[in-house]
Each structure stands twice: as structure tokens, then as C-alpha cells.
């Protein structure tokens, strides 16, 4: 039986521009190429600007997870100076990032992912689709569709929480060096509490049961779309008092295995390769030494995404990775386990946000003054909804000399590296059964389980 090449382009229900090229043989995907198809060049446009401006500009890397970029950018500059954030500032940043996770995860489960599993209405924008393999009976699908509509309000409300904390969503205006620009007042505090209660009810009475309905009908997807077994987390959501992360940083390698403990995270083990990316190739190196010089005509290139590697290994990031690094997951990732982890994380964060909100003290400091560095080098880091995020910043003579960003979707949707080893999505796609080469819904499910954000991946 021969090989067929199938192209999925555009990939809808992701953020941004992705083209997936798959080679199908004997009813299975043999290999895949994940291609980021938009380049904007944020790293270059930041050069020469004040470190103060970086977090405002960086948020425009992505309209789905801007606050993550804003906070990580501020973190990079803050690390160049001594000092810790006041307790209230940690709380506010946790609430801001938490609100971003909630909006993004609800959007993903219902609006980006669910149409792969239920029959949507005939009318636009849902009528045209890859058909087939919708296993839920019509009555159940109708209920899930009604929740799809209801979910729009809840993700909007998650953004309202973000606005009460950080001034506006998307593109928060309230992230300041050393904390936030303005405090919570009692009305804002109460409003956030009410919205969190509504969200808690929605996740418990809708999202969890809906996940269960889908997982029950698609149990084979716990065995489709396996990752590489290597997982990263850069640490996120510090406890306001102790500073201990809710999701501790670390590297978990070689799953499934009973003897793969979480290892400490070593940031200097991170390199990026552009062997198959449309850039001038300076070799596999630390982002501190990288440049970003586009070379679209490069013959060996097929994507605008670079290929980040940790100790040379292809690593997965995201909600499941955070649980794996915590030691709560002992199996390799799959389509359904990624989706499940995202829903679990949504519930966990709502509870955590209620707790942080309760620790907020009116009239206590919410920002410390931070003098801009004349020079310095630091890696701002954290976890965005889709996984590990880092901003590598070098400041010289009060201006940004180098700014390199490594995003979650760079990790998950990278092309092959200098050793021709495929990225996570490319690896996960291989082996996926495909019934209809013209409508590869199975591959779309693998793809969507990573919740790709292409604007981030290329930046």
C-alpha cells in the first residue's frame, strides 16, 4: 500500500497559524511535520528599548496568554535587582495568572477541543467539518453543545477577574516592576469571590461530567498521541507567605517508569536548534547566545518555530507535565490524559485562587519600588496555561541588548532538531490511526490535545 501525504492547513481551533503535514501509510500516520507559518520577530523589535517597556510590548506576543508574558518579562528584570515581592503582590500576580489559566482552559476544553468529539450544529461557523467518529448519542451531544454555549460566559468572567486584578484583559495594564499598579478594594475583592464561586459550580457540574462523557466514549485516546515521556515545569504560583510553588519546578524523564524521580531543573541545560527552522543557523546553543535572523529560503527549514531541547531531550510541557513533575503521573502522556490534566488543573486553580484571595490584606503593600538596571542578565520564568515559559534578557547601558523568548508551544510543536529528532507533536502524531485521509479527525484530536498557541511558538 502506498503513502499518502495529507495537509491540514489551516488548523482551526488553535491560536494562530499552523500547518501539519502528515504521511499516511496502511491507515496510520507514519511521520508528521509541524509547521509554524507566521513570523513576527518580537525578539528583534525589543532590542534597544528600555527594560521598563518590555513587559508591555511582550504581552502582544499573544492575546490568549498575554499576562504570562507580562509577568515573566517583569520577573526577568526583577531578577537583575535584589529584593522580593511583597505578599500582596504575589497574591495579585497569582490571581492574574490564575484568571488567565481559567479563561484559557475553559476556552480550550469547550470551544477549541469539543467540536472534535461532538456533532456541532449545521449552521456556521460549525457546519463544515472533518466528519465521522462522533460517538456520543445525539441527546448527550446536545447537552454538551448547550454547555459549549454556556462556557462562553464563564471564560469571559475569568477575564473579568483578571481585569479586577490587572486592569484589563487581554493585555493587562496593571503589571508593574515589583508588583502591581493598583490594589484590590473591598468591592473588587468581593466580586472576585463571587465569580470564583460561579466558576467552581460550572467546573464541578459541567466541565467534570462533560469530560467524563467524552473520556468514556473515547477510551482509545488514552493510548493515542503518546508524548516522549520527558516533562518540564519551570515552577509557578508561589505561596504568598512561604514562596513555595504550587507547581514546583523540575524535569521528569523517561516515563513510563517506576524509577524516574523528578530531577532539579537546570536552566543552563536548555538549548535551541534551528537546523530545520527558517533562521540563520548559529548551531544548537543557549538562548543567551542566540540570534533570530530569518532565512525563509533555507532548504532544510520547514517551520518558523525553533526547536528547544533540555539536555538534548525532546520535552513536553503543559498541565499534564506539571502533574508529572509533581510526581502525580507515572505514565506517558496521551490525547485524553492531556485533556484530563487541563480540566483537573482548572478545578485546582479555582480552589487555590479562593485561598489566595482570602489571604489578601487591604492597606498592605502591593508593590516595591524597583530601580531599572543599568546592566544585567537574567531568565524570567514561569508557567503559562500551555506550559513552561522563559524570557532571556540581557541589559546593557540601560537598554535591552538581547531578548530571547522560549514558549510552551515552542517545546510542544517544535520541528526536528540538529539530530533530526522530531518534536513532541510530530512524535505524538506518528502511529495515529486514520480512517479517512481527506478528513483526518484523529490527527486533529492529537493536535488539539496540546492546545497549541502559534503566536507564542514563533513570537
Amino acid at each position: 500500500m502506498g503513502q499518502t501525504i495529507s495537509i491540514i492547513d489551516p488548523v482551526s481551533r488553535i491560536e494562530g497559524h499552523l500547518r501539519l503535514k502528515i504521511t499516511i501509510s496502511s491507515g496510520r500516520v507514519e511521520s508528521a511535520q509541524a509547521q509554524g507559518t507566521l513570523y513576527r520577530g518580537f525578539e528583534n523589535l525589543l532590542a534597544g528599548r528600555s527594560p521598563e517597556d518590555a513587559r508591555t510590548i511582550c504581552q502582544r506576543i499573544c492575546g490568549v496568554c498575554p499576562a504570562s508574558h507580562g509577568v515573566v518579562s517583569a520577573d526577568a528584570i526583577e531578577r537583575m535587582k535584589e529584593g522580593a515581592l511583597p505578599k500582596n503582590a504575589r497574591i495579585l500576580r497569582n490571581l492574574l495568572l490564575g484568571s488567565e489559566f481559567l479563561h484559557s482552559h475553559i476556552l480550550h476544553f469547550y470551544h477549541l477541543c469539543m467540536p472534535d468529539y461532538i456533532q456541532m450544529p449545521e449552521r456556521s461557523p460549525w457546519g463544515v467539518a472533518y466528519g465521522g467518529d462522533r460517538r456520543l448519542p445525539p441527546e448527550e451531544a446536545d447537552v454538551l453543545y448547550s454547555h459549549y454555549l454556556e462556557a462562553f460566559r464563564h471564560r469571559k468572567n475569568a477575564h473579568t477577574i483578571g481585569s479586577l486584578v490587572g486592569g484589563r484583559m487581554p493585555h493587562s495594564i496593571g503589571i508593574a516592576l515589583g508588583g502591581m499598579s493598583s490594589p484590590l478594594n473591598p468591592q473588587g475583592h468581593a466580586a472576585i469571590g463571587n465569580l470564583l464561586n460561579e466558576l467552581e459550580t460550572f467546573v464541578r457540574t459541567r466541565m467534570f461530567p462533560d469530560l467524563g462523557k467524552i473520556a468514556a466514549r473515547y477510551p482509545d485516546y488514552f493510548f493515542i498521541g503518546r508524548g516522549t515521556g520527558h516533562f518540564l515545569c519551570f515552577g509557578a504560583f508561589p505561596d504568598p507567605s512561604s514562596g513555595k510553588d504550587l507547581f514546583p519546578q523540575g524535569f521528569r524523564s523517561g516515563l513510563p517508569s517506576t524509577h524516574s524521580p523528578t530531577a532539579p531543573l537546570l536552566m543552563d541545560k536548555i538549548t535551541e536548534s534551528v537546523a530545520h527552522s527558517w533562521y540563520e543557523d548559529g548551531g544548537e546553543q543557549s538562548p543567551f547566545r542566540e540570534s533570530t535572523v530569518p532565512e525563509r529560503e533555507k532548504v532544510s527549514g520547514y517551520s518558523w518555530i525553533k526547536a528547544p531541547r533540555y539536555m538534548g531531550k525532546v520535552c513536553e510541557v503543559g498541565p499534564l507535565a506539571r502533574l508529572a513533575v509533581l510526581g502525580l503521573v507515572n505514565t506517558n502522556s496521551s490525547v485524553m490524559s492531556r485533556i484530563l490534566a487541563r480540566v483537573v488543573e482548572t478545578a485546582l486553580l479555582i480552589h487555590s485562587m479562593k485561598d489566595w484571595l482570602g489571604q489578601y490584606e487591604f492597606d498592605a503593600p502591593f508593590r516595591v519600588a524597583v530601580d531599572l538596571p543599568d546592566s544585567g542578565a537574567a531568565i524570567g520564568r514561569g508557567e503559562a496555561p500551555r506550559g513552561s515559559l522563559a524570557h532571556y534578557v540581557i541589559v546593557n547601558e540601560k537598554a535591552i541588548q538581547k531578548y530571547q523568548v522560549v514558549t510552551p508551544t515552542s517545546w510542544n510543536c517544535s520541528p526536528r532538531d540538529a539530530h533530526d529528532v522530531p518534536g513532541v507533536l510530530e512524535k505524538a502524531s506518528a502511529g495515529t490511526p486514520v480512517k479517512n485521509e481527506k478528513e483526518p479527525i484523529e490527527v486533529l484530536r492529537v493536535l488539539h490535545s496540546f492546545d497549541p498557541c502559534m503566536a507564542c511558538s514563533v513570537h
Partner: protein
Amino acid sequence: MRILVSRREFLRHLLSAGVLASISSAGLFKLESWADGEGPPVVWLEGAGCSGCLISLANYFDSASGDGFPELLAKLDLKYAPLFMTASGEPAISQLLDLLSSPSKHILLLVSGAIPSREGYCTVGSFESKEQEFKQILVGAARSALRVAGVGSCACYGGVLGARAQEPRFAPLDHYLPPSTSLTLLPGCPPHPDWIVTTLVGMIAGENIPLDRYKRPLSLFGKTVCSQCARLPEKQAERFARDPYDPELCLKTVGCRGEVSHCDTPARGWNGTDSWCVSRNTICVGCTEPFFPETPFVTTSQEGSAAWRRSG
């Protein structure tokens, strides 16, 4: 005999009687007499952008009527919107190309994101395995469009990408669309969802939308931010801030561009709150203006500033 008046009819009556300030509603109820999906097909194209404009639109909510994004989706015949549409791949791009193959002007086009000056930097689909340039799809779609709206600063004036000094350069819509295009621009980074819905409703209903010299609807962008700011008395009393996060004083002396920026967020507020930039102790950076982003944002000097040169 009608005894009960629907909430929507009541609102419409108030609006036309000038009782309701136009700030309160984006007017989705104006389409009430239209059956769901009855209006012209709507196409949303995303170029070199971040999807923030579409996410902002998804935050649409009118507390008076309870209408939100699902109600908007129900009303529209939204044929193409990559973030939400079910279709991927060949079915999706074929449907779009079929829609645009008709020689007549019959769609409403919303465009977010800027356009790169070179090929291969922004493609939006593959037809028969061949990548389709955003620029080509955009120009083709505009030819089929009754009206076009640029959404967000990138599409309108280049935005954050217009600030790039290296190749490729990124241009706004009017660089590539013929001057005869019926073009309305909704800048902002992001634009407020009410602005997008107000304009879309107006386009569907065939309304004439008076525009300013930068092609922005006057009803939304007619006043300066400064003139609507709660700190205007501080400015008039010359009580100026030294700290960029001052909670009370006028922030002009630390770089606020409110004097030369235009929008109505001081009155409208973001995300269903009364929050806007200055109310949260940060300067207006002028994100609705062609000069955005002008850095450094926080600055004690207006010397050399394109923004303030404009105001003179």
C-alpha cells in the same frame, strides 16, 4: 393588542428617544428583526497578529440585555473565523475560496493583524497543497466585501509590528486595499468588544458610520481620553505626578498620552468593570492612535515625541 413590551423593544425605544447614553449598548438588538444568520456572510481573517482582538470580542457582554458572544454568534452568518470554526484544512480553505469566487460584493470582512512585506512570512491555509499568502487572501476577500473593518491596531496602523526596523516590515490594511474600499478602522490594542459589535451591527444594518480622519467611528473615538478622565481637575489645577503609578495626580508629566489619544474607555470600562488605564494608576499609552507604540512609554519629556507633535 400588545400589553407586554419585550426588554429589547424597550431598550430600542429608549435609545432612539436619546434617553439611554449610547455608551451603554452596542446595539445588538438592532438586528432583532433579522432572522438568525439572515445578514450577509461575515468573514474574519487573522494575519500577523496575536488573536487578542478576537479574544476581546469574545468578552462582549451587554449587562442591560444579557446579550453576549453566543447571542452575537447566533445572529451572524460567520462563515470563517479560524479560532472558532469547526472546519480545518482543505474543507475550510475551499469553503472560503468558494465564497470569494463570486464576482459580486456580498460579504462583510473583518481583519485583524498586519501584513508582512515578503512572501512566506504569513500564510493562512493550503489549497491543493499550495500555501496561500495572507496578503492574497485578504485582497481577494476585500474584492468580495461590501464593507471592510480593520480590527485592532496592527490591522489599522501597523501596531506593535509597525515598530519593527528590520525586514520583513509589516503594513496595515490600507497599504494593500484599493482606496475605493469601504473601510472602517477600529484600533486599540486590543479594541473594546463593544466597538467591534457596534460597528459590525452598523455594517449589517447598512448604516452610514461617520468616521474621523483616521477612519475611526466618530461616535467611539471622537473625544480625547484626557477630556473624559476623572483626573482632569488635577490637570487643570496643575497638580502633576512624579511617580508613574500615582493614584491621584495627573499623569501627563510621566508620559500619559491621554491628551492626544481618542477612545471612550474612561466611560465604558473594561471587562464589565469600570477599570481603565488611568483608573488603575497607569498612563494612557495611546494604543488607539497611529503612533502606537511610542517608546519609552513612561517618560518625563515630550521632546521628540511624534505623539505630542501631532497635538500642536
